[in-house]
């Protein structure tokens, strides 16, 4: 058999010389650290064996400088006065939390017996939370419905609402909670189109979102929620935590995640360096929860979760000059259609 095709393929092989050992020092250091970790006996539990199958570290999905949650363009553009009016055609409440009480509703609440012990690391808390919520059952939106989410501060007159098509095939809207005042129309962008870069991803419910941490990380990159990092290692400190944490804000503040998807996010965060546990964190509504925080370029962001149900409550951000953001997730429901914007 003539091997001309193999010869041609071989000729296309890139000319890469063997890297000198010092160029691989950082990689060797990572291995050495893993060895030391095992020798100390503090390897974290990995219930689904994900680490063994796909590597112990989360993939490096770091944002470029200046990365902000994608959803911020909508939230920032939301207009003035709005009340917490339930959108037309509310079908099923997803109970995320209540402004009146310290703990949110039962949607993601497995009960007190799942409460983690004290003195946990962020990774341990996230792993415990993932295990606790993974098998919960929650309402599933129909393809034609919308996910309506309200975020903001207590007694605010400009809480912000998002209406995202459950399958991304209808236009979405960002505006004032309740549908009063101005709004921004988001063009339809289902997952397949987003994955090919044809449009910016905006869907309220994504059943095909993977439920394993590794695949989920790849998915987030493919649809543009998270961004890979290709810079030098010495500049990568906490960039993974930053893009992943902000991806969480993006998703929790406008999308309905299934329990298994949320569990996968927690597992992915548990595998990512840079997160620390904040035992007591208070959201904008005064609800006390557990915080998962990270620092990046002088600022610190804390995601706040209910201690018992692990439901997302909101987030706070502090820059070098003090607090910069304090937002609560006030409501998330499935609705049949968005309001009639004027």
């Amino acid at each position, binding site marked *: 058999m*003539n091997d*001309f*095709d*193999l*010869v*041609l*393929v*071989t*000729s*296309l*092989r*890139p*000319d*890469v*010389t*063997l*890297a000198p*050992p010092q*160029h*691989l020092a*950082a*990689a*060797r250091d*990572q*291995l*050495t650290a*893993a*060895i030391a970790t*095992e*020798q100390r006996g503090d390897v974290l539990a990995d219930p689904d064996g994900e*680490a*063994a199958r*796909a*590597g*112990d*570290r989360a*993939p*490096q999905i770091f944002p470029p400088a200046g990365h902000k949650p994608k959803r911020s363009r909508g939230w920032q553009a939301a207009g003035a006065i709005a009340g917490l009016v339930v959108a037309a055609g509310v079908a099923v409440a997803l109970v995320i939390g209540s402004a009146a009480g310290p703990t949110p509703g039962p949607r993601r609440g497995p009960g007190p017996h799942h409460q983690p012990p004290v003195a946990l690391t962020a990774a341990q808390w996230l792993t415990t939370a993932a295990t606790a919520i993974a098998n919960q059952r929650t309402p599933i939106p129909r393809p034609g419905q919308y996910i309506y989410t309200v975020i903001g501060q207590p007694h605010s007159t400009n809480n912000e609402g998002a209406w995202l098509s459950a399958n991304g095939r209808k236009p979405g809207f960002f505006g004032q909670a309740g549908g009063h005042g101005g709004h921004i129309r988001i063009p339809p962008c289902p997952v397949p189109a987003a994955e090919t870069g044809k449009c910016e991803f905006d869907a309220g419910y994504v059943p095909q979102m993977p439920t394993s941490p*590794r695949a989920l990380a*790849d998915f987030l990159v493919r649809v543009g929620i998270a961004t*890979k990092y*290709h810079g030098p*290692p010495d500049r990568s400190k906490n960039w993974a935590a930053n893009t992943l944490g902000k991806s969480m804000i993006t998703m929790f503040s406008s999308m309905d995640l299934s329990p298994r998807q949320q569990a996968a996010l927690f597992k992915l965060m548990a595998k990512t360096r840079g997160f620390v546990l904040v035992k007591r964190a208070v959201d904008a509504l005064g609800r006390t929860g557990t915080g998962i925080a990270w620092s990046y370029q002088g600022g610190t962001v804390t995601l706040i979760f209910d201690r018992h149900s692990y439901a997302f409550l909101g987030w706070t951000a502090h820059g070098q000059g003090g607090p910069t953001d304090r937002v609560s997730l006030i409501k998330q429901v499935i609705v049949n259609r968005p309001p009639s914007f004027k």
Partner: protein
Amino acid sequence: MRTGTAGRPVRADDAAVIEASKADPEAFAELFDRHAQMIHRYIARRIGPQIAEDVVAETFLVAFRRRDRYEPAQADARPWLYGIATHLISQHRRDESRQLRLHQVARPTPSVEPGHEVRVAGDVTAETVRGALAAALDELPDLERDVLLLIAWEQLSYAETASALGVPVGTVRSRLNRARHRVREALAATGLSATFREILSNE
């Protein structure tokens, strides 16, 4: 017995290193010292140098975590490491595609020992079929591309490729045949294959 870094004994083969690392995890670093450069080069060839170091680090981390499952009868760990690296490369498909597209706009420098066939191939591909060839590789099914590149670029044997990918040797053969068929079809569309075959037959 000879001693290596930090006075550790230099073991005869990779399987012995891996076996020793079960009781003494630090021993595993020797496997990195033996093979990291080669695995790094393979990864860099496929998805580019920018993220190759990250992926080689991940390759050895996965290998370290999975060392309990290593088959002790396999003295040479390279196929195993190639297999892990190949799996991780599959998660960087866009980078590999970008790397292959680069071939369509920049002349590669063949690094193989340049026999006449390769020299001719290099000259011809530089001007005529580089784009078609790179596109054909890019469009191959992942499993077929893995087999083709492990054999053509890394010079692994069928048996080593089978070991790396965890498939029977027969599967390697069939995947390789399918891949080569697709490559030949792509080359035929350029009108090159007959010309090149003629050049080779005149040697």
